[in-house]
């Protein structure tokens, strides 16, 4: 926003500056008032009392609850991410297959898992696993499988889009120098597609990390379970402080990942390593201008 002039409004003249200043003042007052109102109300309800925040100064709260919980969350997210990437790569490529009998079933599987609410899928896997697989602890397995199937289906679409974003000429040239189908995919298309897909993949991984919190409902021992159920039970009255603390941890984690996504996107936008345009993260607009020389209106 700093380097380029904003095209949505003129450089303000005297009247606009005055109006802007008044708006700024009003907005500031409104925001500060809202923040103060929340603060005062929480205060009146005794939510800032030292006693209920005290537990978060004790080392055991961190070593005994928050860090083990965080490890549980990261474990589920890490496993989920690895399997989702594998699932996404396999089914993304399968959907581009020349053979109808591969393409169609792969498409159906991907579309189905994208349409199932993730929480229902996790519930179902959790209840189904023992009757199919016999004894064992299925909280982690159900959570990871659910995360991998759902996010893997979304990633399959990203992979498909990424491979398609590589200009036709690349594949044609590869065939022309005598590569087989596998070689074209492995040596020419995928390496270029990966660069284009990186931002979209990372932003889907942020979604995956956030969704690990659903494990709470099947009592998977994660950050939410420790932070939101056990800490308030052990320390009477600390429910809201606990929610705020673990909320901050989640936001910090996800923002770090999101920042990585933004950085990768900026890099691949500049990069000439690939002839493919960056794949847009799911849920964002397909911007014809992005990646070319067209300047964006907002950034």
């Amino acid at each position, binding site marked *: 926003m700093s380097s380029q002039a904003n095209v949505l409004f003129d450089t303000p003249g005297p009247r606009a500056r005055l109006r802007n200043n008044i708006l700024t003042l009003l907005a500031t007052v409104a925001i500060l008032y809202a923040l103060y109102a929340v603060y005062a109300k929480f205060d009146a309800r005794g939510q800032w009392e030292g006693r209920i925040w005290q537990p978060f100064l004790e080392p055991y709260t961190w070593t005994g609850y928050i860090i083990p919980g965080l*490890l549980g969350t990261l474990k589920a997210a*890490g496993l989920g991410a690895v399997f989702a990437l594998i699932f996404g790569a396999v089914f993304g490529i399968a959907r581009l297959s020349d053979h109808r009998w591969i393409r169609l079933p792969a498409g159906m599987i991907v579309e189905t898992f994208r349409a199932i609410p993730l929480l229902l899928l996790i519930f179902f896997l959790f209840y189904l696993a023992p009757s199919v697989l*016999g004894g*064992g*602890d299925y909280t982690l397995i159900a959570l990871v499988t659910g995360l991998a199937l759902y996010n893997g289906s979304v990633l399959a679409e990203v992979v498909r889009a990424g491979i398609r974003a590589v200009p036709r000429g690349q594949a044609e040239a590869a065939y022309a120098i005598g590569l087989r189908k596998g070689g074209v995919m492995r040596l020419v298309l995928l*390496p270029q597609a990966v660069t284009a897909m990186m931002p979209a993949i990372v932003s889907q991984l942020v979604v995956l990390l956030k969704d690990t919190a659903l494990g709470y409902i099947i009592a998977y021992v994660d950050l939410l379970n420790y932070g939101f159920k056990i800490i*308030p039970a052990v320390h009477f*009255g600390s429910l809201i402080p606990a929610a705020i603390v673990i909320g901050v941890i989640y936001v910090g984690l996800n923002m770090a990942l999101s920042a990585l996504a933004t950085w990768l996107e900026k890099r691949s936008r500049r990069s000439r390593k690939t002839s493919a345009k960056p794949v847009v993260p799911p849920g964002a607009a397909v911007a014809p201008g992005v990646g070319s020389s067209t300047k964006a209106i907002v950034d």
Partner: protein
Amino acid sequence: MRVTRIGAALAAAGMLTLGLAACGDDGGDGGGTAAYTTVVDKAKGAKKLVVGTKWDQPSLGLKTGAEPEGFDVDVAKYVVKELAGGAEVEVEWKESASSNREAFLENGTVDIIFATYSITDSRKQKVTFGGPYIVAHQDVMVRADDSAITKPQDLAGKRICQAAGSNSYKRITDPPPDGELDLDAQLVGAANYSECVQKLGGNNLDAVTTDDLILAGFAKQASAAGGGFKILGQPFTDEKYGVGLKKGDTKTCEAVNAAITKMYQDGTAQKLFEKWFAGTQGLTAPTGAPQFEPCA
């Protein structure tokens, strides 16, 4: 060249996550009872059991340190030791929330459960119960300064808590056989009883009704923190807390019953009750072992 670098970065990221996953992967064999057909055999043979308790229930099962503590936990330790014939047994404590107790027993995540687990006809279809080791009674907890509610019948028109996965509210709102009092109370949903208690303290509902032992734990915790709740002391049901076992494990069930009988005979049960619930109004300590349910 560039491609290899990206590939290397991806591989490194993959290894990082796998490594992370591996380092948290301890309880691998969990509750695997493969070698033993009954829990009592496993206690005697492997000297290692996975015990399910609540982790968020003050005075019953609360995770305050490396292992949980509370009445249920102490009873579990006593019973498990008796099962192994007096030998020390290595116990892995596993959180068993109300919502997944049946599933955990069925799929072998835990070997045995002591988790405020009321024996009911419908649960008997899926679980074999040892005990009961104590009989709790459904009661009502209100704010200490609330004089409008003095008996369960006063709950008509009041806001009571419905904790997800618990049916206690039905005793108030539904007629028999599912319920009891058939009162027209308003249900306020909550994810668990900790939330119910938070809402009660914040005046967002009028009464929390469930087993008196559970309420006593919260009330004790609240009074230590300067908050005020009181239990009406008007029990209106019997909740027989049983020891949850995998369906059909009658051999362990008999052994558990023998252990509980011994626990009452040598006075341990009364001592433990005193340890965790002393000074709570409206509670009466048990005098002898409860009548056991047949093992089936």
